[in-house]
C-alpha cells in the first residue's frame, strides 16, 4: 500500500532524511518511531503530497506521490502533528467542507459526516466552534477529517500527543478499529503505544531507517535471550556461581546489591528456556530467602533504546554513550491501569 524507496529530503544544506526505504502492506498499522527531529514528520509530509522529496520515490495506494499526486491525495487521509483546523468553523460544517473537497458525493455526504462524527465520538460537539474545543476533541475532529472520505491510507502524525491518559486510550482504540479496512501509518515517540496499536514498526533515527519489521521479530532480533529478575538474600559470590551453574544460563548480571545481603540479579537464558524453577530450587537448597522472581519482558522500548543509543554512541563516540544517550523525548509509559 505504501512503498518508499531511497527517499531523501534536503532543506538547503540540511538533510532531513536520506535513503529512507520501507513498505507497508494493505490493512496493516505501522508505527513510525524515532526521537524528535529524526525525520518522521518530513517523511509523512512527503507521503501526504505536501512537500516533494529531493530524491527517491514513494508510492501510495499504487500511485507516485509526485507524478500522480492527485490520485494519491484522493486516497489518503492525513493528520498533521499540529492538528491544524479552521478555528472559526463549527465541527459539523467543517467536516462537511472537508468531505466536499475530498469529493464525497453530495447524496451520501450528510450521512457520511454523521457516521464519522459518531465513530470519533464528536457528535455531541458538532455545533460548537472548533476554537472552543478541548485538545482531546480537536484531535478527534482531526481524525474525523482524515477518515471522512473513507481513504485507503491514513497518515497520522503523532495522533495522541498532548492528550490525557483516558483520551489516549480512546484514540488508540479508535485507530485500532481502523485496521483492516484502512492501511495506517502513524508516528509517535510513545513506545508502549506502538506495541499496543501497531503490528509492525519502522524505526528512524537521524534521517535514516535503523530497523523495521514486526515487533516481536525485532525484539527477538535485538534480544535473543529471555531474562529473569531475581532478588535474593544470600552471599553474593555464591549466588552468582550457583545461578551461573544452572543449565542454559548464558549470563548473570549483578544489577544492584542493597544492604542486608540482599542482591538483585538479572539472569539471561535462551528464549523458550524457563529457568525460574531451577532458581527457586537453588535458593531453597541453599536456604536463601527468595524475595522476587520475575520474568522480564523485553519490550520495544528497550529495542528502541538500544538502537538509538547504539547509533548515538557511534556518532559521538563519547566516553559514556549508554548513559548520555537516553533520549529525553521518550515519554514514559502512560499508566494504563490508572486510566481505567
Amino acid at each position, binding site marked *: 500500500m505504501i512503498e518508499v524507496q531511497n527517499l531523501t529530503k534536503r532543506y538547503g544544506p540540511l538533510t532531513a532524511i536520506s535513503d529512507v526505504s520501507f513498505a507497508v502492506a494493505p490493512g496493516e498499522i505501522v508505527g513510525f518511531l524515532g526521537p524528535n527531529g529524526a525525520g518522521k514528520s*518530513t517523511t509523512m509530509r512527503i507521503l501526504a*503530497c*505536501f512537500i516533494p522529496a529531493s530524491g527517491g520515490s514513494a508510492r501510495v495506494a499504487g500511485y507516485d506521490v509526485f507524478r500522480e499526486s492527485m490520485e494519491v491525495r484522493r486516497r489518503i487521509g492525513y493528520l498533521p502533528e499540529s492538528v*491544524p483546523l*479552521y478555528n*472559526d468553523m463549527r465541527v459539523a460544517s467543517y467536516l462537511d*467542507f472537508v468531505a466536499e473537497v475530498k469529493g464525497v458525493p453530495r447524496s451520501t455526504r450528510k450521512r457520511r459526516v454523521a457516521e464519522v462524527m459518531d465513530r470519533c465520538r464528536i457528535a455531541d460537539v458538532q455545533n460548537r466552534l472548533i476554537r472552543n474545543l478541548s485538545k482531546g476533541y480537536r484531535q478527534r475532529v482531526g481524525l474525523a477529517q482524515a477518515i471522512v472520505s473513507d481513504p485507503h491510507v491514513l497518515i497520522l502524525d503523532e495522533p495522541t500527543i498532548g492528550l490525557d491518559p483516558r483520551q489516549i486510550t480512546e484514540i488508540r482504540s479508535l485507530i485500532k478499529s481502523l485496521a483492516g479496512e484502512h492501511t495506517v501509518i502513524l508516528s509517535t515517540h510513545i513506545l508502549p503505544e506502538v506495541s499496543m496499536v501497531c503490528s509492525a514498526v519502522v524505526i528512524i533515527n537521524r534521517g535514516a531507517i535503523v530497523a523495521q519489521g514486526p515487533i516481536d521479530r525485532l525484539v527477538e532480533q535485538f534480544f535473543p535471550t529471555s531474562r529473569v529478575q531475581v532478588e535474593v538474600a544470600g552471599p553474593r559470590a555464591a549466588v552468582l556461581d550457583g545461578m551461573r551453574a544452572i543449565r542454559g544460563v548464558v549470563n548473570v548480571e549483578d544489577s544492584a546489591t542493597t544492604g542486608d545481603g540482599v542482591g538483585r540479579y538479572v539472569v539471561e537464558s535462551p528464549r523458550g528456556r524457563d529457568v525460574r524453577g531451577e532458581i527457586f530450587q537453588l535458593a531453597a537448597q541453599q536456604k536463601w530467602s527468595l524475595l522476587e522472581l520475575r520474568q522480564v519482558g523485553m519490550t520495544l522500548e528497550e529495542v528502541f533504546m538500544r538502537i538509538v543509543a547504539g547509533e548515538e554512541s557511534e556518532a559521538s563516540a563519547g566516553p559514556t554513550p549508554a548513559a548520555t544517550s537516553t533520549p529525553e523525548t521518550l515519554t514514559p509509559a502512560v499508566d494504563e491501569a490508572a486510566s481505567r
Partner: protein
Amino acid sequence: MTIWPIYKREVQQYFTSPVAYVILAIFLFITGLFFYAIFSGFAQASMQIAMNPGMGRDLNVMDSVLRPLFDNMRVILLLLMPLVTMRLFAEERRSGTIELLLTYPVRDGAVLVGKYLAAMTLYAAMIGGLLAYPALLAYFARVEWGPLLTGYVGLLLMGAMFAAVGLFASSLTENQIVAAIVTFGILLSLWIIGWLAAFVSGPVGAVLTHLSILEHNDTFAKGVLDTKDVIYYVDFTALALFLALRSLEARRWSG
C-alpha cells in the same frame, strides 16, 4: 471542479466573522460622508446657478457628483482592499491549515481561484452598497445611467486587480500585516508612478504613464470603455494571480 467548496468556505468565513461587516460598514460610512459633502456642494452650486443662469452650462450630476465620488472611492479602496485580501493565505499559513488544504485533492489553482472569487464577492457587496447613492440622486436629479454603468465596470476591473495583488501578497507571508502592507505598497507605487511620468519624457515616460492605475480609471466614469484600459486591468489581474500560483508552488518546495 473543487473551486466551489473553497469559495463557499471563504465567503462563510468573511460573513461569519466581523471582517466583512466592519469593512462594509466603514466603507459605506466613509463614502457616505464623501457623498454628503460632494452633493451638498453640488446643491449649493445649483442654487447659485438658479440665481445666475449664465453660469450653469456644464453642471450635471455625473460630472459634478458621481465622478468626484468615484475618484475618492478609489483612494478608499486603495486603503481597504489590502485588508480584504490580507487574510486569505497568510492566515492559513500561520495556523498551519494550509498543510491540510494542500494535501486535499484540490489543485493549487482551484484553491487560488476559490479564494479570489470570495474576495471579489465581498468587493461586489461593497460597491453594490454604493448603488444607494445614484439611486438617491435619481430621486432629485437626472442621472445618466450609461456613464454610471461604465464607471461601475471601471470600479469592478480595478477591484479585480487590487484583489489579485492582495492575494499574491498574502501568499508570500504568514503575517497578515506584512501582506496588507506589501499590497498597499505595490498599489500605491502603481498609483504614484503616473505622477513621476510627468517628469520623464520619451518612451520611458509613456511606459510609466501606461503603468499608472489612475491613468486608466477616469475614462470609465466619463462613459468611455477603452480596450486599452480594460486590457491594463485584466493583464495586471492575470499577472498577479499567476505570481500567486507560482508563490504557492514555491512554498511547497521550500517546505
